[in-house]
C-alpha cells in the first residue's frame, strides 16, 4: 500500500523536468495503525451510521465523532534520482530546461504548525489552458 508524501512548501523554484520529489516511506507499523484506525472508525462510527436522525433547528444532533489515533509520520528517505524509464513516459513538449537546482530538496518534515511566508511564484514555460482550484 503506497501513501508516499512529499513536502515542498518552501521550495517553490524552477526544477528540472522529471524531478520526482522526495519519496517518503511510511513504516509498516504506521500504515497498519492508520488502516486499523480507519477500520475502527468505519466499524464503530461509520459515516453510514453517524448520519443519524436529528431535529431540524439551529443544530443537528449527531453522535460524537470518533477519531482514529494516527501513527506519527515517518521521516522521509533521501531523494532518489529518476530512472531512465521515467523520462520516456514524459510528454514530448520541447522547451528550454530551467537551470538545475544547486542543492537537493530538504527531506519532508513531520506535520506541524508553522508561519508561512509567501514563497516566490514558480515560473512555467507556457501558460496553462485551464486552472484547477476549489469550486468557484
Amino acid at each position: 500500500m503506497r501513501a508516499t508524501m512529499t513536502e515542498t512548501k518552501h521550495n517553490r523554484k524552477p526544477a528540472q523536468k522529471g524531478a520526482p520529489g522526495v519519496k517518503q516511506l511510511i513504516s509498516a507499523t504506521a500504515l497498519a495503525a492508520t488502516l486499523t484506525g480507519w477500520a475502527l472508525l468505519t466499524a464503530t462510527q461509520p459515516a453510514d451510521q453517524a448520519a443519524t436522525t436529528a431535529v431540524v433547528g439551529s443544530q443537528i444532533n449527531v453522535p460524537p465523532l470518533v477519531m482514529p489515533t494516527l501513527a506519527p509520520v515517518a521521516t522521509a528517505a533521501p531523494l532518489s534520482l529518476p530512472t531512465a524509464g521515467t523520462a520516456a513516459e514524459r510528454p514530448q513538449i520541447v522547451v528550454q530546461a530551467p537551470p538545475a537546482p544547486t542543492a537537493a530538496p530538504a527531506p519532508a518534515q513531520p506535520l506541524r504548525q508553522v508561519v508561512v511566508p509567501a514563497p516566490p511564484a514558480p515560473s512555467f514555460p507556457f501558460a496553462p489552458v485551464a486552472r484547477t482550484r476549489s469550486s468557484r
Partner: protein
Amino acid sequence: MQQTTFRAMGSTIMVALDADTPRAIAALAAVPDWFAGWERIFSRFRTDSELSRLNRSHGRWMPVSQLLWELIEIAVTAARQSHGLVSPALLPALEAAGYTKSFIPDQPVAEVHPSKSASGPRVSLDYRGIRLNSHSRAVWLPPGLRIDLGGFAKGWAADQVVRRLARFGPVLVDAGGDIAVSGPRADDSPWPIAVDDPCHRSEQIDLIMLGEGGVATSGRDYRRWRQGDVERHHIIDPRSGAPANTDVLSATVIAPSVLAAELAAKAALILGSQAGLDYIATLENHTALLVLDNGQVLRDEAWAAHCWVTV
C-alpha cells in the same frame, strides 16, 4: 482552438474545443443551453427544479427523468463505495451550516444565521434511506431526507460535454475548476493545467500535463462564510453533520474521469492528510496533491509523473 466561457451551476464554465469547423463551432455554442437544462433538473436552489420537487416528495414514490435517475444512481453508488464519506443526503446539514443560497463570485464572507424552529421534522443524513426502483425509474425518500447533488453535478456535466463534443475534436471542459479532457490536443500533446495555490490565489503550485481523464480540486478556501462567531465552509463531513474539520485546506486529484476525481478529492479533504492519502492509494489510477492549512504541500508517489515541473 475555439473557446466559450459562461456562468452555470454557481461556477465559471470554460470549454475549449480544438477544432474550427462550422459544426464544431455550432456545437460549442450550444453548451450553455445544455447546462441551463441540467440546472432545471439538478439545482436545489430552484424551487421548480425536478430535484426540489423530489425533495418535497418524502414518503411518496416519485418517477424521475432519465438524467435525474442517472445522477442519483451515481451519487448513491459513490456513497456506498466511499463508506458514506461522499453522500448526496446532506442537504439539511448544508442548510444548517448556512449554505442556503447559490454562491456569488467574490462575495465577501457573509453573516448567515441558522434557521430557527421550535420544532420540526426529524432529518436524516443517511443515504441508505434512499430507495430506487429501476423498473419504474422512481425514487423514494424517507421523511426528513433531502438530496443535494452539488458534489456530483459539475463533474457529471463536464463528462457529458466531453462526450458530446469529442467527435468534433479534442475538447477540455473546466467546470468551476473540475476539468475533463477527451484526450490529447490535436497536435497529440497533453493539456497544460495549472494547480492553483489556495494560500495565494494569484499563484500556482504545479503545472500538470493531462492527456486523458480528469482533475478536480476540493477545498475549503473559497466557499466559506461566517455563522455567528464560527467560520463555515461547504464540505460537510457526514460523520459529524458539520463542515469537515481536518488539516487539509485543498485536495487535488487526477483520476480516469473528472467525476471520480471530484469524489476522491472530497473524500481526501474530509479524511485529513494521512488517511486521505491512504484512501487515494486504494483507488486505481488516482493520484493526489494536498495543501494543508499550515501551507505544507503533500504529493503522493504517482503525482510527479503528471507534472511538467515538480518543485
